[in-house]
């Protein structure tokens, strides 16, 4: 088998197969059994191997073309003209790399802290990884939808089995919210299928649709993606899901699953219904700005660290949607491209930073079993290494230049200046708000006198935790200091996308 020909299939099916094997072997119900330990190593081995297999997606990526690369295409369900059609471009390749990069870290993070049914836990993450890679590489509507929905199942179980106190409420809410959002997307796909005769995204892109049709399809897509991003006002599942999920689940949710909403906008909404997107662009910008400003204030008021980071995620994802929908207000030129690229960079960067932030909270939670800010204080005295990492990631979260958080936000802010002063004014308020809620939390948790006996008893990072946070710190700084490789990867695709969005579908009617 030629690896470069089937690399995407391998990235999907290797983790799923590994996860199925883990489920089948099981752990005998005992964490300390030898078999449970072997399963842990096997999960790590599979995820690391998956990461190495994904490296050619970067090294072998042709940045000079916007066409799909690493394409695989065969018929899947002949009767419905559904194809097994995979491929990546400059938008999806970085997201796949992010997925394969984060998953091994999550598995290491759950190494000792999962006390019940470890084999099922690791299996769920591996299966989830395969499905997520599949979502980012699918180019057929049904394949995309199947993977998109199937992804809910492992996450539903992860939150429900290994979550906190109110896990059942949170996970049912998570499932039903996202399921409700997605089903209308399916109706839209089938509607388009009845027009084109297949589910291929490129056929969807090339079919002419009236403005009315485009508006309705846009709304169907919007519900699916806005819930995932999540955009205000359909964000309420996220704080619950994040708070109740185990650390690994929160990391995957924040780092990758939220990106699927953003990805859906650029892969589906913008090219398939450009006129519908234009019609609703003002509303999208408005909702994004509400997310940035209002949710920023909400974050400021949180007493629970995980909740604070969850709200900060919503605010940061507001930048992504803002960047994507600026292009009609910037009156052409480089503003549109800047906004789009900025949104994309922000997705990758937020994936790294929010993942790291949730891991930091996980480190504290494993030791003290509390997420309340008030239960901490002066952690720097007992955990100096940890404090250094936490401060670094918090700075990145606040958008400090030199970290990845700065790059995307800055690009989007500049783009919004070209569009409208007030957009930029509101967007830039995040630099103050973000700094306020993040650094205030750092001040209360990390600095000051040692608050109580629990904090006094804290032990600094173990080697395992140090490695995980260290790798993420390097990634955050690398993207912050030298974003060029990432931006190069995207630029041709972004230009092609902007061209597509500029083609009105009304003319052909």
């Amino acid at each position: 088998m030629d690896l470069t020909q089937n690399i995407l299939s391998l990235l999907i099916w290797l983790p799923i197969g590994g996860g199925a094997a883990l489920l089948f072997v099981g752990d005998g119900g005992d964490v300390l059994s030898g078999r449970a330990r072997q399963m842990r190593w096997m999960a790590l081995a599979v995820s690391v191997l998956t990461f190495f297999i994904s490296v050619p997606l970067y090294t072998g990526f042709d940045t000079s073309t916007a066409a799909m690369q690493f394409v695989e295409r065969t018929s899947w369900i002949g009767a419905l003209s559904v194809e097994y059609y995979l491929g990546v471009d400059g938008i999806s390749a970085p997201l796949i790399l992010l997925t394969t990069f984060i998953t091994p870290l999550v598995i290491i993070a759950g190494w000792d802290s999962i006390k019940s049914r470890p084999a099922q836990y690791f299996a769920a993450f591996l299966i989830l990884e395969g499905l997520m890679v599949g979502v980012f590489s699918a180019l057929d509507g049904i394949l995309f939808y199947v993977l998109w929905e199937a992804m809910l199942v492992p996450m539903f179980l992860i939150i429900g089995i290994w979550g906190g106190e109110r896990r059942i409420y949170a996970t049912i809410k998570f499932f039903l919210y996202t399921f409700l959002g997605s089903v209308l997307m399916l109706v839209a796909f089938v509607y388009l299928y009845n027009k084109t005769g297949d589910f291929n995204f490129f056929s969807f892109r090339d079919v002419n649709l009236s403005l009315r049709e485009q508006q309705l399809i846009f709304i169907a897509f919007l519900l699916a993606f806005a819930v995932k991003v999540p955009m205000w006002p359909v964000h309420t599942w996220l704080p619950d899901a994040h708070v109740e999920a185990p650390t690994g689940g929160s990391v995957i949710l924040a780092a990758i699953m939220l990106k699927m909403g953003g990805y859906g906008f650029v892969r589906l909404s913008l090219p398939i219904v450009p006129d519908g997107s234009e019609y609703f662009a003002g509303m999208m910008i408005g909702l994004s700005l509400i997310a940035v400003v209002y949710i920023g204030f909400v974050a400021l008021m949180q007493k629970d660290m995980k909740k604070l980071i969850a709200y900060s995620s919503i605010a940061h994802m507001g930048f992504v949607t803002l960047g994507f929908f600026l292009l009609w207000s910037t009156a052409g030129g480089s503003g549109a491209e800047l906004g789009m690229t900025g949104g994309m960079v922000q997705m990758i960067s937020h994936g790294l930073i929010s993942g790291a932030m949730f891991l930091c909270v996980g480190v504290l939670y494993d030791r003290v079993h509390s997420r309340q800010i008030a239960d901490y204080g002066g952690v720097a005295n007992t955990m100096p290494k940890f404090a250094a990492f936490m401060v670094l990631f918090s700075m990145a979260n606040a958008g400090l230049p030199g970290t990845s958080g700065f790059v995307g936000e800055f690009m989007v802010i500049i783009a919004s200046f070209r569009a409208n002063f007030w957009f930029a004014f509101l967007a830039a308020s995040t630099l103050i708000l973000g700094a306020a809620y993040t650094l205030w939390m750092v001040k209360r948790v990390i600095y000051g006198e040692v608050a109580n006996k629990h904090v006094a008893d804290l032990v600094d990072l173990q080697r395992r935790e140090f490695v995980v946070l260290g790798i993420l710190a390097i990634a955050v700084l690398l993207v912050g200091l030298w974003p060029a490789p990432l931006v190069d990867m995207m630029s041709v695709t972004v230009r092609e996308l902007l061209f597509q969005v500029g083609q009105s579908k009304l003319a052909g009617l």
Partner: protein
Amino acid sequence: MIFGEFTAAAPEITLLIMICVVLIADLFVSDENRIVTFWLTIAALAVTAWSILATAPAARTLLFDGSYVSDALSQVLKLGVVGVVAVGFLYARDYLRQNALFKGEYYILGMFGLLGMLIMISANSLLTMYLGLETLSLSLYALVAFDRNNADSAESAMKYFVLGAIASGSLLYGISWVYGMTGSLQFDQIAIAVQDPAVNSMPLWFGMAFMIVGIAFKFGAVPFHMWLPDVYQGARSSVTLYIASAPKLAALALILRILVDGLGELHEVWQGMIMVLAVLSLVVGNVVAIAQTNIKRMLGYSAIAHVGFILLAIFTGTEQGYAAALFYTLTYVVMAAGAFGVVILLSRKGFEAESLVDFKGLNARSPWFALMMLFFMFGMAGVPPWVGFFAKLNVISAVLDAGFPALAIMMVLASVVGAYYYLRVIWYMYFDKAEDRSVFQAGADTRLVLSLNGLAVLALGVFPGSLLALCIQVIQAVN
């Protein structure tokens, strides 16, 4: 073949002979050796399945002066019912033995019910259809009452019998009107007769409405569903499995033969009635299922909701819709058989696992069967990659293609509501601690078949192509 000119009817003839053989053989089997009857029954079903395959005529064949038909649709449906009945008998074996119900009559009644279903599936005249339906129904009434010391069973059997008799009466009344208007009982001749505008008029529609009431009752469509939850709950779990699976396929034959083969011309007249039944079933089934605490009753309401989907596929009046209905029913039956199989697996001597809380902590007791139940539940909820998703997708696609986007949106929203109660089963299995730690007593063969059943729900979801192509081909061959 030995049946000469009646070769096309070989499945029914074979099964009838085998029933007589089992009936007589059972007389000579003592209670300790009742297992012999069980294996004879399985052998009888295997021979029947073989005769379906071996004697399938190449083209559509009419027999008995045109009142019996053998075509591609009948073969697919017959194989489906024979297979599901056999699987149901296997799941029920150890359960029946533990509950002192392991009697030859159970299998005889089950096989007579199967005979009725085969006749319904191959019916080409209204009277043959009625004959098959009554053979099935009478066997079912007796099966529901099979545990004669159980007051719930007796009550639900009585309810089923009385309401079933009313429905049969309604159907017969409708048949008499249709016969009076068209002058024929045969579906193909009815189809020709209704092309005459003088025939295609109010009296015919009036008769048809009564027939639809009968059909809706047999399917369990709202508002003719009242018997269904009570019977599902009152009958012993093994009987519920029987009622919940194979008869749905026979009911599909009933509706396809009568409304499509016979009265296809009147599509615009019956479309509205079917739509009302379907929408009500979808909404009532899904909403009321949420409030249930008994899993058999919950699956009963869920069956009502699934019938809504099947009826909406029929409602479209297109080949695509009929193929979608066939695919939906076939796959639903596989999932329902598996779900009740797990319910039976959890039951044991003197204990019916029929409350939802009995599923608590199943993941700790048996991760494998918890996973299988998860497959059935997500399958029924229509979550990909399980096969229920493609079943729903086909129906949605057919409905959209027929030009009813509002109905398609209603269907997907109803499935979101429905997802909640399936999730609740999974929540009990995975998120709660076990209260009961007893060991399952099912035999290795039962476990194997149940596992294959679960894996089939996944495998058909990942590779639905060939089954879907088969359904489309069968429907095209009929029309």
